[in-house]
């Protein structure tokens, strides 16, 4: 979703609502439409994306029972998404 100036509300200053200028609204829209830069190292991003040990073991259990490769695909996709 891309934000526009129409999405920007007023500013609350010490309890009073203050309307923003077009330039101020545009500055806020630019911030909202700019993705947050994730400066974390790759291994930390991977750790988050891998998920819990419990969920991974559950994937491995079902892969063993069904002969599937859900866990391998998951690990490979995380490594591809967050390269060294």
């Amino acid at each position, binding site marked *: 979703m891309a934000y526009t100036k129409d999405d920007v509300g007023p500013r*609350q200053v010490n309890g009073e609502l203050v309307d923003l200028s077009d330039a101020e609204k545009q500055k806020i829209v630019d911030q909202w439409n700019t993705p947050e830069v994730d400066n*974390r190292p790759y291994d930390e991003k991977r750790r988050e994306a891998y998920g819990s040990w419990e969920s991974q073991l559950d994937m491995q259990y079902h892969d063993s029972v069904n002969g599937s490769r859900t866990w391998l695909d998951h690990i490979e996709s995380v490594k591809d998404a967050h390269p060294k």
Partner: protein
Amino acid sequence: MSSVIKANEWQAATGSTVSIPSGTTLDVNGTLDVTGATVSGLTTGSFVKIASQTNNSEVASWDLTDVFTSTYDAYMIVMSGLNTTGNSNAWYFYLGNSDLSSTRSIHWQSNRVMSTNIYNHGAESDTKYQFVQDTASGVLAGVTSGVIWVHNPHTDTLPTKMTHHVETYDNGAIGTYCSQTGGSMATTATSDVSFRLDTQLGNIGSTSVTQRVTILGVAH
């Protein structure tokens, strides 16, 4: 018998000190605004409320101006019900001059502890301080409540330092309930008197949940 004295200004008859005699209660019936005055004799070892505000509408940001003065070294900002319109959203805290036309460069780090994972942000510098890394929108559980401590904001001889501890909620696949802690400091020693809250995505606030921010000064 009581009487009312109406005056726009108090001045000492001699010297420059106006005293309230020991044993007398000065009932200010609200906020005591002592900006620009030298205050002595305050009750020690207690919190003194500087300001308390609520919001029940969608706003782009929330400013509390001229709240940090030389009266106190440390301030506790108590926040409850902070909610956003955007999802997977970070909350930002800005320090600045009176009208926040100038905001400070801040170095910050934080930890987000969830039910199954711990995520860390470190060595980040920006014109704002991220005290919530990620939270959900819309749902009541997604609101953020907690505190930010602000130390030595008014002096220009020490850089302002802050610590935070908040509880929030992430509706992503991992985790859910998040406890977030961390700290930050301004990268230069500058007098900071005002602060602003806003988010990474969209307006803050709604008609369904009351947001409240109260700032307290610590009387040593």
